[in-house]
């Protein structure tokens, strides 16, 4: 058999090699001074690309968006209870 030139069998977890961030045209930007650290955005992100992390100068954990995978769906913007996230043009 001639083996297929493209290997269809991929290593587990390699989907992360496909960065989906460039699909977006706008990106969410979080204002940490307005943010109340409720972590709603991290919980509802459909790409699971928002992590709550320790940021310098802020006593509480703050959401950090991984722009390699954020597709710009703006669900975090919609759900944020204090409107701390805004979409800005990203092209």
């Amino acid at each position, binding site marked *: 058999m001639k083996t297929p030139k*493209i290997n269809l069998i991929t290593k587990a977890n390699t989907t992360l090699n496909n960065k989906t961030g460039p699909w977006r045209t706008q990106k969410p930007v979080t204002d940490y001074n307005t943010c109340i650290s409720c972590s709603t955005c991290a919980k509802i992100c459909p790409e699971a690309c928002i992590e709550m992390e320790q940021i310098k100068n802020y006593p509480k954990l703050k959401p950090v968006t991984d722009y390699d995978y954020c597709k710009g769906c703006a669900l975090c913007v919609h759900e944020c209870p204090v409107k701390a996230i805004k979409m800005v043009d990203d092209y």
Partner: protein
Amino acid sequence: MTTNMENKKQILEGSQAIAAVVNNINPAVISAYPITPQTHIVEKLAKLKANGEANYEYVRAESEFAAASIILGASATGVRVYSATSSQGLLLMSEVVFNIAGMRLPIVMTCANRAVSAPINIWNDQSDVMAIRDAGWIHLFAENNQEAVDLHILAYKIAEKLKLPVMVNVDGFILTHAFEPVIIPDAKTIKKYLPEYKPATGTYLDPSNPVTLGAFFTPAHYFETRVDLHNDLIDSLKVIKKEYKNLLSVLGRKNRDNGLVEYFGPKNPETILVALGSVIGTIRETVKDDNKIGVLKIKTYRPFPADEVNKILLKAKNIAVIEKAISLGQAGPLYSDIKAGLPINKLNISNYIVGLGGRDVTQKMIKTIISNAKAHNNKTKFIGKI
């Protein structure tokens, strides 16, 4: 089952014969949803399992979409699988049918060919398979029940060798419900030709060697996967030919054709009739005493054996392509395939659509087609009534 009758000629219903040979091929997982006219095949396979005469897992499914997904998943774990369907069932499976081909899973499935709704009709034609002919499967067509039995063994061999799925098409009722003399090769004979399926480590789902199958492909690679699948299908023509020859020698049968096409008739025919499946039997009987008419049976429809077909057709003046399907708004699919491969304006080639929704195809119709084909028409005609 009837172990003492194996390797001997017996009278069996087509469906029973297919079920018997599938059991002897020894798949690990079978999943299917019953649909007329395929029902007897899976009913028999379920019964064999219930009676303790089979080794496979028989997974009952809630629909054909589920049945196809179950065999896809089972095949991805590296085992031999089987399913069968018809008509609406095949259409419900169609998304999975494309996935199976794209994932290069060596699945074999029987399609008991039946008309497609609406209006609802349970009888034979080949519209169902024609709807998914471009999915990337190899499509084999059986003329009679013995051929159906043999083609299932061949199907597993080429599927597992090339990692390409194979559909064995048998005309619903005309073959599935007809009793004919048939030899069912026993498991031992089959094993000589078709060894146990053992895919290489790292090519199937296995917790100790984790891999991803059916992964996401961006525009950077998807294009090439389609090129590979197309090229591998075209290349499979050689393998089908070779493996068919090997199969006949293991089974001790006479070589009537080469696994791709069969031509019978005079050396320099005036007219050649081309068809797929069981209607060849009617054509054979109609033209057996006519020394001007040749018949070309297409056994492997996808990949399309264009070179073999052309070699034969270019001997004749007139070609009549007789088929039980229509690409609505265009012509018969086989007619389009043949025309695409032939040198332009070389031949008088006409298209006759017959037998839709189980309409009987009579010898009288074949005779009408023969006389009509002599007129230079290059058109598609429906032959429904005489």
